[in-house]
């Protein structure tokens, strides 16, 4: 292959490096207003009245809106395919505040400073209500209902309990099987609330154009879902809305959500002026979305020889005040994780409850990092109790080529799913190469007497898009000079999808990569795509690009065949040339001129692609840690990721995905946690105290790509974006246990928690 598999220059690299004005915020419109949100100081309160009189008297304050100004249309802010499997439990502005930080009113003014000044002048009359911030209490308490509205859609037990979503699915008979096992191990694992912390915050600018259409320029992962959702809640037709996604400075799932677009939309329509709303970092940490905090109970039954006979996972999760992604994230906690060990008996049960805490939602991995932590720590625990080597236990039980994923058919995205069979796997190879790279089985001497070394590992699998749900379109159009316009709905959020899709287009047409001009994610100009989530873009949107490019190639062969008096199939497109039999050849530019001016056709095609498969990428990840036995500090010395993502279309970018995921996973393992007090107030809404890894914290990383050829993927590709974030936390925590014998059932494994664990151990 000439372009696929090559480390071409990232298609947007130069403009980004030069600092060109390409992000949402690099853009302004005459007369633009600035919006700021007034947030609730109470975890649970009715908003009886909002007096904005004094705020509106400030010169330059244009408008203040609250729930009386906006029609109440229940919806979900989760950016998912319609009909969304998330409850319609949200209003643009509602009569009740459900967490400290919930929207109460919105100000628009001539400047940010004026808007902030106006917030201080708004007087709100609240009726405070009793609040639930503990998920166990929210699970059992049906006296206090967080969502008591009469007509919600899609809440599991609306009006009766605080349960937003639940799943209970079983393959085989776990209870019966456990009775036959030689050993049954049960443990609880506790997962924290963490925030994606993308560099670019949520930001949107909306205006009404000269055709009375609402234009929304926004930092999003889901432009097409946004257009549909905005049409629904603003009650204007989709035809009057255009969503434009410029360059995006990271999303990680946190932008698979309507977070600010509805407000700029409402305000632009009301004021007739452009309106901009940008979150501060504090707002990101209070009012964006978190990875769901969970408690996971694992029960595993094994035979003496290490055969896993039964596996049960119970998840209790906190979705916070609203149920965005409540069902599907928690569904993934089981679905994406338990198939790693396809026992004959598997039981997955989850309850996801509303609380008066800030909102959980989508975050890279989408439930799998929680489940993978529990399962992979648990496998180590089972091995320890069984007296079996932890690597051997994994090798004996992990999913193999040709195996059927036992849960996929029972757990789709909110409805019955499709059967998934493993058609490609490099897992064994990944384990082998990973073990070699980390020096598995070779104990190393610590560098000082108060330090102890340990090794840990974890296996992970994910999906490539949502089977039978995710799809995308691509249009390829040939120009006079042999260049092509590629228009895709797929959403580049910094991960490099524009580059990868352009590579596939060039490969399919046999033209150089720099002949592809890509345009992505503009609802007026590009075909539909579900957006950048569920690790779908390379696999799903790539499939559409390959189809469209192949169709254009066929059109060109169709006009060249008669001209060259040969079968169209006999013409080869490669190296920027079309070559026929008998020495006939033309450059692609000549072909284009011929097609456009002699044959008089526009070589052009649009194709759509979906897949009933969601082939799992696999990862085997390994950590070497050094634990300070007196301070509890954990230093990850080396981290090895061996990842099977099928064919890496752009190897360096795949490595970038993996290494970025390791950095994020490192934070999850050791120091990231949004801390709440008992009222649900965030205690650390800033980077001084919400710690994420910087380049100084990242360990020495070894990243190995294990190539396989996925038969259903474009050029054999599977996904790479999410699977590498699953393994770091369990691998690191397993390594801590290996080093000092302390099992951290709760992450992050902060120095103080490890120190406490060590003290209890010696007691």
């Amino acid at each position: 292959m000439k372009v696929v598999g090559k480390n071409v220059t990232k298609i947007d690299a130069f403009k980004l490096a030069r600092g060109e004005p390409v992000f949402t915020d690099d853009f302004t419109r005459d007369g633009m207003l600035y919006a700021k949100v007034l947030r609730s100081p109470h975890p649970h309160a009715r908003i009886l009245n909002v007096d904005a009189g004094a705020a509106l008297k400030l010169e330059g304050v244009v408008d203040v809106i609250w729930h009386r100004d906006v029609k109440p249309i229940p919806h979900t802010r989760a950016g998912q395919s319609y009909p969304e499997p998330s409850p319609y439990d949200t209003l643009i502005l509602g009569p009740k505040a459900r967490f400290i930080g919930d929207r109460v009113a919105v100000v628009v003014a001539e400047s940010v400073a004026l808007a902030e000044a106006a917030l201080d002048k708004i007087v709100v009359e609240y009726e405070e209500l009793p609040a639930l911030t503990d998920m166990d209490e929210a699970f059992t308490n049906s006296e206090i209902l967080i969502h008591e509205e009469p007509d919600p859609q899609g809440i599991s037990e609306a009006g009766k309990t605080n349960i937003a979503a639940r799943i209970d699915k079983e393959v085989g008979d776990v209870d019966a099987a456990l009775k036959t096992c030689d050993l049954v191990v049960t443990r609880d694992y506790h997962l924290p609330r963490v925030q994606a912390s993308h560099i670019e915050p949520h930001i949107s600018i909306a205006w009404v154009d000269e055709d009375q259409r609402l234009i929304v320029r926004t930092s999003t992962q889901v432009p097409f879902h946004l257009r549909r959702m905005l049409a629904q809640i603003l009650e204007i037709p989709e035809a009057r809305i255009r969503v434009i996604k410029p360059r995006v400075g990271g999303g990680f799932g946190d932008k698979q959500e309507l977070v600010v677009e509805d407000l700029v939309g409402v305000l632009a329509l009301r004021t007739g002026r452009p309106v901009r709303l940008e979150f501060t970092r504090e707002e990101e940490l209070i009012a964006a979305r978190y990875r769901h905090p969970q408690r996971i109970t694992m029960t595993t039954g094994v035979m003496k020889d290490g055969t896993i006979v039964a596996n049960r996972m119970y998840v209790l999760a906190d979705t916070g005040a609203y149920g965005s992604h409540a069902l599907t994230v928690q569904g993934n906690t089981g679905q994406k994780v338990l198939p790693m060990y396809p026992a004959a008996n598997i039981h997955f049960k989850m309850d996801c409850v509303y609380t008066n805490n800030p909102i959980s939602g989508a975050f890279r991995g989408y439930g799998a990092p929680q489940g993978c932590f529990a399962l992979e720590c648990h496998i180590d625990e089972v091995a320890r109790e069984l007296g079996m080597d932890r690597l051997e236990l994994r090798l004996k039980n992990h999913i193999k080529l040709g195996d059927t994923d036992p849960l996929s058919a029972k757990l789709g995205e909110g409805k019955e799913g499709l059967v998934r069979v493993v058609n490609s796997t490099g897992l064994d190879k990944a384990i082998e190469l990973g073990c070699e790279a980390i020096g598995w089985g070779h104990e190393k001497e610590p560098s000082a007497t108060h330090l102890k070394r340990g090794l840990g590992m974890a296996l992970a699998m994910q999906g490539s898009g949502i089977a039978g749900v995710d799809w995308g379109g691509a249009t390829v159009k040939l120009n006079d000079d042999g260049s092509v316009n590629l228009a895709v709905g797929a959403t580049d959020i910094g991960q490099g999808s524009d580059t990868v899709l352009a590579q596939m287009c060039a490969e399919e047409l046999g033209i150089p990569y720099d002949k592809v001009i890509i345009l992505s994610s503009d609802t007026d100009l590009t075909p539909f795509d579900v957006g950048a989530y569920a690790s779908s873009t390379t696999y799903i949107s790539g499939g559409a690009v390959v189809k469209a490019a192949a169709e254009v190639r066929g059109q060109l062969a169709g006009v060249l065949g008669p001209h060259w008096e040969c079968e169209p199939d006999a013409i080869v497109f490669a190296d920027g040339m079309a070559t026929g039999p008998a020495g006939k050849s033309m450059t692609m530019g000549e072909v284009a001129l011929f097609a456009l001016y002699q044959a008089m056709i526009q070589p052009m095609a649009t194709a759509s692609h979906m897949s009933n498969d969601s082939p799992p990428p696999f990862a085997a990840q390994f950590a070497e840690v050094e634990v300070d036995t007196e301070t509890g500090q954990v230093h990850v010395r080396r981290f090895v990721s061996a990842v099977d993502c099928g064919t890496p279309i752009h190897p360096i970018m795949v490595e970038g995905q993996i290494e970025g995921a390791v950095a994020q996973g490192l934070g999850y393992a050791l120091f990231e946690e949004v801390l709440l007090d008992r009222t649900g107030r965030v205690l650390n809404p800033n980077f001084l105290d919400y710690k994420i890894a910087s380049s100084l914290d990242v360990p020495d990383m070894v990243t190995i790509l294990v190539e396989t050829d996925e038969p259903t993927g474009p050029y054999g590709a599977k996904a790479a974006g999410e699977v590498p974030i699953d393994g770091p936390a369990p691998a690191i925590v397993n390594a801590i246990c290996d080093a000092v014998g302390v099992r951290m059932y709760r992450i992050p494994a902060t120095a103080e928690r490890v120190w406490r664990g060590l003290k209890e151990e010696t007691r």
Partner: protein
Amino acid sequence: MWNLQEYRIASSPAEAVALMRKGPGKGAYIAGGTDMLLEHPACDFVVDVNNAGIGDIARTPGGDLFLGAAATLQGLVDNNFVREFAGGAISKSASQCGNRPVRSTATVGGNLCNALPSADMAPVLLALDATCYIADEDCQESLPLTDFFVGPRMTVLEDRLLVGVALPGECAGWRCAAHKLTRTAEDISLVQVAVSLGMDDGKIQEARIALGAVSPVPMRAVLAETMLAGQEITAVTPDVLRDVATIAAGECDPLDDHRASAEYRRDMVNVLTRRLITRILTDDGDNMEGGAA
């Protein structure tokens, strides 16, 4: 919201104090501004002291090391006088503050005047007997750094200006080591300990143990110091070390907060004190810089 009305630039310490007193409203001195830009303190004007002639680092003829208040932390990292003083402990502490862009802007005076219990530069300077020089409109005053901090975010300054700190020449040959315990590489300290020992004739002649982030102000563990001072080096057995460290831990008064519990902080004072003294007594002096405690 920051309601800053006026930016004043002073060309001398005396002028700075005069500009501060001129009013109207409330003023604040600004040098690097790294803390101020985060906190947006309620003030109507600021007085910039970057051109007030207080940014120099110098060695006096008597051997004292003078650090001008407006010297940047990166300046402390790079300056040869500082790198040579007490084994380079001050440079090393400065190098652990924030990251390079922050260090290139933030100043040693700002770090001290902001008076956080966790001020990165306080422990090492306390451990090396720093003296503060304070300017008024028509006079200067000096006092030990131990007397400079009054409470969290409070110093003796009021509207006067810190022009710098001086470290006595006698300390130049002391062996000094400090450690900042953090959650990540770029972080506020959970606990900081600095130890310096003046050794001669096989004896510990002088001992300083300074603690950060474990009491309302950066402090010295005076009782623990007393146990060490005058001891023969060979008499400092592991048991003695354990006692000294335990006493030091008993002297501090840490808070429970979301960064760490008081119990953990206190135990870390114990661990770090013991380790730092051990390191000073066992190292040959060459690898004092850069090694983890």
